[in-house]
């Protein structure tokens, strides 16, 4: 690959190779301050022309790597940064075996982690990023890594991909932390936000899971919280894990231990401020 960038996000080391300079330069800027890998990289992501001649003629980025999904649609070169981010997610989702991967955002306070999990659009990214700006340590907006041996949550503080309406909520942050605005992506308008410096500096610190929340966002939501039983939590988390089945008994033991020992609640909210308030209230118990 002509252009390369290596970085560590939490306990995972990535090598990103690209046929084009643009996506790698954008990644370097966005991930400024992230540590370089100390040894061999866990995963490789390659951004390549979909067909050899397309590199110059009509640039289109295909995401390739150690693990691939057949038929993953190529992206326009202008969305190369998104392709790199999606490639990193894909390698984690398909290849991670050391941790039980939960599709969840995580924030930490006093050594204890709150997991936020739910369907796309539930507000995991927005809520965790807002909490990260309001006194919590941001641990990740996409994956929470559950260590089956210790039961601790490891941080995976990738840049946050802010979508559509969420962009306006972060107008006050240092512009150097924001990536380019990418319009017309498969997920709408996207702009990446580098997590606060403390999230990067403390990315190697795991936290004890203390609360599991299932946020639900909607303009007519009532702004309330309710208990969720452990059997339901278990089923929902097996669905929220990309590698639960692959981990076999280790995954089962890790997940049943988590749901048996950590309280869980669903929160419904209509505005991001209300969402933040509900998380804080549930945290205080």
């Amino acid at each position: 690959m002509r252009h390369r960038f290596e970085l560590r996000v939490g306990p995972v080391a990535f090598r990103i190779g690209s046929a084009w300079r643009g996506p790698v330069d954008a990644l370097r800027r966005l991930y400024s301050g992230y540590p370089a890998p100390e040894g061999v990289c866990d995963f490789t992501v390659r951004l390549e022309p979909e067909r050899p001649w397309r590199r110059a003629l009509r640039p289109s980025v295909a995401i390739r790597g150690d693990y691939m999904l057949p038929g993953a649609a190529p992206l326009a070169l202008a969305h190369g940064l998104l392709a790199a981010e999606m490639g990193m997610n894909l390698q984690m989702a398909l290849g991670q075996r050391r941790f039980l991967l939960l599709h969840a955002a995580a924030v930490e306070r006093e050594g204890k982690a709150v997991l936020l999990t739910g369907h796309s659009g539930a507000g995991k990214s927005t809520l965790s990023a807002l909490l990260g700006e309001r006194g919590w340590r941001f641990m990740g907006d996409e994956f929470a890594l559950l260590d089956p041996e210790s039961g601790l949550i490891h941080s995976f503080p990738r840049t946050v991909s802010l979508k559509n309406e969420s962009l306006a909520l972060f107008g006050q942050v240092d512009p150097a932390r924001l990536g380019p605005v990418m319009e017309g992506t498969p997920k709408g308008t996207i702009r990446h936000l580098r997590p606060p410096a403390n999230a990067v500096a403390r990315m190697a610190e795991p936290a004890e899971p203390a609360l599991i929340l299932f946020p639900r966002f909607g303009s007519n939501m009532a702004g309330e919280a309710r208990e969720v039983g452990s059997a339901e939590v278990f089923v929902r988390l097996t669905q929220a894990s990309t590698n639960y089945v692959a981990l076999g008994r280790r995954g089962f033991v890790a997940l049943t231990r988590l749901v048996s020992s950590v309280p869980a609640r669903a929160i419904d909210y209509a505005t991001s401020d209300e969402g933040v308030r509900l998380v804080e209230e549930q945290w205080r118990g």
Partner: protein
Amino acid sequence: MAGPLYAADPPGAVASADLEGLTALFHARSGTTHILAPPAPQILQALASGPADAGEIAARLAADFELAAEADAAAAISARLAELEAAGLVWRESAPTADSGTKTAAGSGQALE
């Protein structure tokens, strides 16, 4: 009443966890996770001491639980056994004895993948 003999994997081949009255069960041979409601986990537990038909399972459970009339309990257990068989958690060990009059499928006792 003699019916088909059912068998289950030994307790070491599964992992289970109690989740507020329901039981999460990991079946190692298939790699499948099941959520079971009573009395399914108790039936599997009763089969830990060896293959049994529904009547024998009722008798084993009666040692630990208060059951309804034995015939009713055996009928309910037969229904649960059929569900457990469909889920791949129990299988028929052998055909019933000739005097039972119970119709069973030929070639029963197939193990699961």
